[in-house]
């Protein structure tokens, strides 16, 4: 499967982009709405004109029509042909290639089986649910056996459960196919779950390309740090395996016991929403709790951010407004700090 290289590529908001997407990797492009994510996919697919050069496997593909770039593209709006049945939608690319009827039928049936949509064969797109449509669109883009797969927010506009389920299936599928994949999303957790590498894009400019871990632990600038929302990165001075699956880490005066399997921990990143604060002593075992001093309170639309100092360290906690208002918390006051263990991220030594 090929490598993709964008050299000094410009279009709309995107300017002078230089990106190399490696063979077989799942490359996630993440960024806020309107940052130019879809434009990059359109450039790789060749459905839009652009300045600069695009190489697929060292071959310059500028001027090569989209159909000859060997790219499968799952559009954000899916673009399933409304006048064709599920079968005919999937078969479209195969007919375009001039494949024989028997071979088309065989390939479409095997794809429908793989995507578990065989029972939908004769239905039209307007008769399908959101999740079913996504599966059909994915099957259609995979049908002509592309070398590159472009996925534009494939789990957007689905309910949480369906999105989670489809994402799991897609990860399995992509790992199985080992196909160079460019995956666009604005969901950080999704990116982290699926990516070999992540490119963070703001206003058409790539801010950072790195592995998911590096993105969280080594944000290259302020805007990356703000986007990944991981201001609480704690260096561990000591790390000790207690039993299988439990590690005790020490960082200054903080001592925590964390669920972790596999070696010593060098750094921990704690999302602000996973730091709980209370003006009264919370019930339950005194595990991973500290006292902290409220340094600053900032109110947003739906949340309150609280800057805390614990020893010589500063932590940032985020609480829903309703929960914050129920408590008596003011700047300069001492509060109880509890670290939730749900979404901690670790770096091994």
């Amino acid at each position, binding site marked *: 499967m090929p490598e993709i290289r964008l050299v000094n590529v410009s279009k709309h908001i995107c300017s002078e982009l230089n990106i190399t997407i490696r063979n077989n990797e799942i490359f996630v492009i993440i960024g806020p709405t309107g940052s130019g994510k879809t434009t990059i996919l359109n450039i790789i697919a060749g459905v839009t004109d652009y300045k600069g050069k695009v190489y697929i496997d060292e071959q310059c593909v500028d001027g090569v029509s*989209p159909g000859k770039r060997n790219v499968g593209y799952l559009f954000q709006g899916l673009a399933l042909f409304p006048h064709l049945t599920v079968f005919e939608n999937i078969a479209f690319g195969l007919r375009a290639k001039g494949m024989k009827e028997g071979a088309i039928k065989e390939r479409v049936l095997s794809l429908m089986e793989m995507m578990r949509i065989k029972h939908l064969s004769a239905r039209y797109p307007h008769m399908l649910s959101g999740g079913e449509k996504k599966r059909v669109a994915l099957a259609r883009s995979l049908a002509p056996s592309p070398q590159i797969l472009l996925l534009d927010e494939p789990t957007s506009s689905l309910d949480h459960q369906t999105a989670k389920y489809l994402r799991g299936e897609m990860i399995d599928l992509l790992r199985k196919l080992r196909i160079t994949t460019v995956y666009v999303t604005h969901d950080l957790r999704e990116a982290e779950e699926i990516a070999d590498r992540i490119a963070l894009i703001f206003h058409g400019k790539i801010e950072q390309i790195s592995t998911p871990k590096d993105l969280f632990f080594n944000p290259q600038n302020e805007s990356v740090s703000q986007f990944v929302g991981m201001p609480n990165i704690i260096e561990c001075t000591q790390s000790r395996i207690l039993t299988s699956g439990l590690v005790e880490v020490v960082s200054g005066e903080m001592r925590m016991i964390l669920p972790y399997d596999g070696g010593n921990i060098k750094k921990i990143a704690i999302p602000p929403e996973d730091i709980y604060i209370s003006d009264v002593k919370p019930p339950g075992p005194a595990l991973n709790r500290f006292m902290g001093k409220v340094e600053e309170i900032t109110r947003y639309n739906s949340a309150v951010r609280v800057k805390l100092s614990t020893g010589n360290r500063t932590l940032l906690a985020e609480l829903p407004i309703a929960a914050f208002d129920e408590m008596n918390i003011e700047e300069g006051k001492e509060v109880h700090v509890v670290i939730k263990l749900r979404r901690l991220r670790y770096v091994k030594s």
Partner: protein
Amino acid sequence: MKNKTGRLQWAWGAMPVILFVVVWEIIGRFNLFPGQFFFPPFSAVVKEFYDLTANGILGKNFLSSLTRVLIGLFGGSIAGIFVGVIMGWKHMVNKALSPIISLLYPIPALGWLPLLMLWIGINEMLPITIIFICSFFPVVYNTTTGIKNVDKSYIYAAETLGASNIMILFKVIIPLALPNIFTGLRLEAGMSWRVLIAAEMVAIPTGIGALMIQAESLVRVDIIMVCLIVLSVMCLLFEKIFALAEKHMVGRWSSHA
């Protein structure tokens, strides 16, 4: 239960028609309209319909009109779809032709009559040409709009799947523009009858329109009414045929067709 509701709805719809016919019959039969010759009762119109059908006059004139409509409408629609597809598909053609189309489209079809009488003469080609013009421009307009309005993402999807331009045009763009094309066809199907009758009344000695003008000179209101009913039914029937064709071709996949 469903059948019962259906029957009730049908009865509710038929009621005003029955009432209309009854009132018409009463007014005609009891000479409630000033001048009894000018308002024959419904039964007299039905009887005249039977007589005109039996002696072949209505059939002969109807057939003349029908032939003209079919040829003119078919020719105008095919040419309109052809030109509309090219205008919608090729930007440069659209740019070149749309000023001419925009100038000619607002002219009422009957406005062409004096010019065409001089150019073509009074013969079969005259009403056919009028109907051709009547259907051509709206079909061009609707087809161009339909083709241009096809969402670009479908075209991109077809392109990335490797479809050629011809395949994209015939397998994606034209099918997706069908609802718009049918809107034009449906409107013109009824309109062509209206234009034909007017043309026949003014210039042509045969056809339903000509029969009406002859009846007028003989003060045969019953014949005029027969012709009007035939005209009304044909307008309705033609629109219905295109609506059914649209439902057949588009209804399966369009959730709102």
